[in-house]
């Protein structure tokens, strides 16, 4: 993607997110406090974040590949299960990814 296209993406996304925030302060509460809106807000993050985890861990363009990222993700999951703080989770995942890269050349 070109630099200009990236800028358009960045600014359009930012403007959209700001307008969503402003809408909450501006529209009547009854418009937003619909059951279906509540369901979206409660559950979209889990679906979206999980989809991103999966895609970031094993996709490369349209191919599915198993490499150090998946190993690192497994290590991160163990760290999270042991209630490690965020920064430690990232450090062990990064170290694992680098280690696999060095070992597999």
């Amino acid at each position: 993607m070109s630099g200009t296209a990236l800028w358009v993406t960045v600014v359009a996304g930012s403007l959209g997110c700001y307008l969503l925030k402003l809408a909450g302060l501006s529209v009547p509460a009854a418009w937003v406090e619909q059951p279906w809106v509540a369901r979206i807000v409660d559950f979209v993050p889990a679906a979206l974040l999980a989809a991103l985890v999966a895609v970031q861990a094993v996709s490369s363009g349209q191919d599915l590949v198993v490499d150090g990222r998946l190993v690192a993700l497994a290590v991160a999951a163990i760290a999270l299960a042991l209630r490690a703080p965020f920064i430690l989770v990232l450090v062990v995942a990064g170290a694992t990814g680098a280690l696999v890269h060095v070992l597999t050349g």
Partner: protein
Amino acid sequence: MSAARSATLRDALGLGLAVGLYGAAFGAAAVAAGLDVWQASTMSLLMFTGASQFALVGVLGAGGSALAAVGSALLLGTRNTVYGVRLVPLLRPHGFRRLTTAHWVIDETTALAIAAPDRKLARLAFLVGGGSIFLMWNATTVVGALGASLLGGAAQAALDAVVPAAFLALLWPRLRKGFPEAAVQRRVALGGAVVALALTPFVPAGVQVIAAVVAVALAGRPRAAERPTAREEMA
């Protein structure tokens, strides 16, 4: 200074420092996805809502289109609309103040304002929390982005491994026991991941992420009989 006031200030400032770590992770993820330091910083300044920022660079990093990237950022940004509705009675922003207040309506400032014991402290928590988070988030975005752009080779592999781990860390609290409807959250998460992977070979990069969300939303559409009322939802 009253105990409630100092507790509110301590929480607001402490949260700002904690969020700073995510800012560094975002800066690094943005650079890994192909953004430069300026673009990463612009996002932290103007978008200023962490999950949406991660989603946008996540989709771009997976080779997704601008439309898919902005779409996933907006899907996550709908949370802030609901937060705004809850903040209106506490903050009562009018005129120009409403435009500036809106920029700081995020997970953390909403949690701080709602947790405060009264309206005055809710405003204080929102302003101090919003201010400290905004400063830390933007400063650490630059640190993360600059740090990541100096890396090469094995360090780049490390960075590639950090991005999915960061998304997992954002997702994890929703799957834990104690989170509202954690069992449903787990099914939704599993569904999202499976659909996204299944579609990856067949659709343009990034589209599978949005498609996964739509598929899960349609599958989980409440039946008319079991649809809860708004009052139950809020409980």
